[in-house]
């Protein structure tokens, strides 16, 4: 076990965990930030996506020991009230069916739109292709990313 001071959502959290513990399980089990989801554990589905220094990152394969002083943002920190343009677009387009994958989808989309605020449809598909939605809400996810891109300046 080792002590880590983690910068998450603008706050410092302390975690006493084994160094190889993936960030996902630190967030969920140690810190109670359960908005970040477990889907596959091998970086194949995107449900666990968070931002590390602004970049979309699969938290299920990122050991806590590798984070250091990096700044982590989870779905809870994107906007607690759901006011981030991507969250708003997700509601307006009424994307979720079961909703389980959507935190990861939103985090992937938010990081992508920061890099590419006015993407083409092909660029959206390429960016979102790593996130699986078993309910098949892909049409609405694509639409919501487009809607969000009209909200971001």
């Amino acid at each position: 076990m080792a002590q880590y001071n983690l910068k998450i959502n603008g706050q410092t959290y302390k975690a006493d965990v084994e160094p190889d513990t993936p960030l996902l399980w630190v967030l969920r089990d140690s810190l109670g930030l359960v908005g970040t989801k477990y889907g596959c554990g091998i970086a194949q589905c995107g449900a666990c996506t968070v931002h590390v220094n602004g970049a979309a990152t699969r938290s299920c394969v990122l050991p806590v020991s590798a984070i250091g002083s990096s700044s982590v943002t989870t779905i809870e920190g994107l906007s607690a009230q759901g006011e981030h343009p991507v969250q708003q677009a997700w509601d307006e387009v009424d994307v979720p069916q079961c909703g389980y994958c959507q935190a990861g989808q939103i985090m992937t989309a938010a990081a992508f739109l920061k890099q590419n605020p006015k993407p083409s449809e092909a660029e959206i598909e390429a960016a979102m292709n790593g996130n699986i939605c078993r309910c098949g809400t892909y049409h609405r996810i694509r639409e919501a990313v487009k809607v969000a891109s009209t909200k971001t300046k």
Partner: protein
Amino acid sequence: MKLAAAAGGGLLVGFNWTDAKAKPAVLDATAEAAAPSIEFNSYLSVSPEGKITIFSPNPEVGQGIKTAFPIVVAEELDVDWQQVHVAQAPLDTVKFQRQVAGGSGSIPHSWKRLRQAGATTRQLFINTAAKRWGVPAGECTTDKGMVLHKGKNKKATYAELAADASKMPTPTDVPLKDPKDFKLIGTSIRNVDNKDIITGKPLFGLDFHRDGMLYAVVQRPEAFGTKIKSVDASKARAMPGIVDVITFDNNVAVLGKSTWQVLKARKALNIQYEKESALESTSDHDRIFDELLNAPDATVRRKDGDVEAAFKSAAKVIKSEYQCPFLPHSPMEPMNFFAHVRPDGAELIGPTQTPERARGDAAKFLNLPQDKVTVEMTRMGGGFGRRLATDFVMEAVKVSALAKAPVKLIWTREDDMTGGDYRPAVKYRFEAALDAKGNMIGYKLRGAGINAGNPTRQDNFPAGAVDNLLIDSAEHKSPITTGPWRAPITNFLAYAEQSFLDEVATAAGKDPIAFRLELLDKAKKSPAGDIKYDIDRMRAVTELAAEKSNWGKKSGVAQGFSLYFSHLSYVAQVGEVTMKQGKPELTKVIAAVDCGIVINQSGARQQVMGGVVDGIGHAMYGKLTFDEGAPEQNNYNNYRMIRMSEIPEVEVHFVDNGIDPTGLGEPALPPTGGAVANAIFKATGKRIYKQPFVEQDVLKGVS
């Protein structure tokens, strides 16, 4: 109705409106309630502050029931949707019936009950206001949660009337709204949990936390047909955070303080297995299928006319076989459940499609009365039928009972994919007899399944439209466990049947839609045996799909048609394929849907689109194979799921016929595979006989 002081100090009443004679029940005040609410029936309560809570009794698995049910209650209650707060009700078999998410059955079962719940309470508020104002109830109207009397210029909100209303007799035989007066039903209403979903609130079973609970993972046999020979858990027990290792049934549970610690310790278990029964491989199944298809004996499911004579006299006979593999359900949230078994009762919390079955199984195992076991349903990260089973609930119950501790038992993706309860593998043989004019005079179907029960749906179309018909089935019992998978059986049978009918139409030299319409005409004019589908509704969705797809009139686009009735709803689909660099590409699916009245346009539309995407994804890519009883795919790196770049455009059209609504969780999926495969045939001249499509010759080289 009577008022009763509740334990929490609030003023609460409740009664079961489905039995107006039932005695009032005292309800617990919820701790977070700002003011005591008055419960007018099982489905709704009104607080004096004007908060209207509608309880949704059925489990939410992504089918949108938590939004659709309250819409129906709110419609008849005549309240502003903005006033409505929706809450998931726990399992309560006194207040509710059929708290199940399965079979697309929730809406048809509850439609009238929900309307009556809303309408009865609306009438109660009218009666209360009429008494207060000294006017006839018939002169009062309602709007947005208010009772109005225009003549006397009076109005009162439901909240203002609630306390008095609770002392009034419950009205009986209250008329329901004329559907033309619906204000909410038929509009687009967003998922009631959107805000919690997009801000990452703990909604799902895996998110549940109770202080002091232990995390548990279970090592199950790696191959179906093996049993534990020996367990050496010494290394695992010595690892950090590990509290206990427990062997039960054919499993070994590792309990500890965190998910990661129990996952690591599970890898350190040394378990030896031995053969218990047959260790089957996919190659064995291929052989078994052929034996079953050729076996002289099978269970006859339906027999009309004289099939032998029809085939003897046929001008042309068409014969084909279609095969599908096992599939895991792959909900994004893997199986999990929380259980706290105490000497005097048990508390169960988690994602289940069948809370009543979970309670029954737990009570039976623990030898407790049913009322000592509580079940709370969390939102489910998908289910697709997997959560109809209770194996994962019972694992949590058993481990909690043995450990004497509250336990959250979780499955990894690998556990979920290799843990059984699969869509069964099935192979079909179809035969059709055509007369000289191209009329189908004989039809035979044999379904061979592995733990599939009856893999046919003997009364579905074209049964009833063919004079001489024989449908039978044969089954192989396997150690590989199977269960219902979204649109059980029809998720594959529909594709096979609709592809075969396309073959028959081609052999008869007829347009695929015209061919089906001829069969429907024949079923209408001179039915062969019982007909269990509505011929006019079959025809209506067929014609709508033809119209919206501009059937047969698009240049450069190959179209394929498919039509299926399942779970009381009717869906026709047209798939569109264009050739790109010599390879077929699916560009569009047009769906025509008859589920009667559409309750929520937004939810219903997405349910159809999602069903089509699911249908395409599993038909194109889904495959679970076995080697000596062990699944050969175990996670998304070797089991392919459809992704955004692989979806075609999907267009949804609803038939507007005002018929009472039926379910939509499943019916859009079955026709999709056939629409796609028939369009690929039209484009390439090559028929697809097996899933996954992507491995068949016609799609070789298509990524």
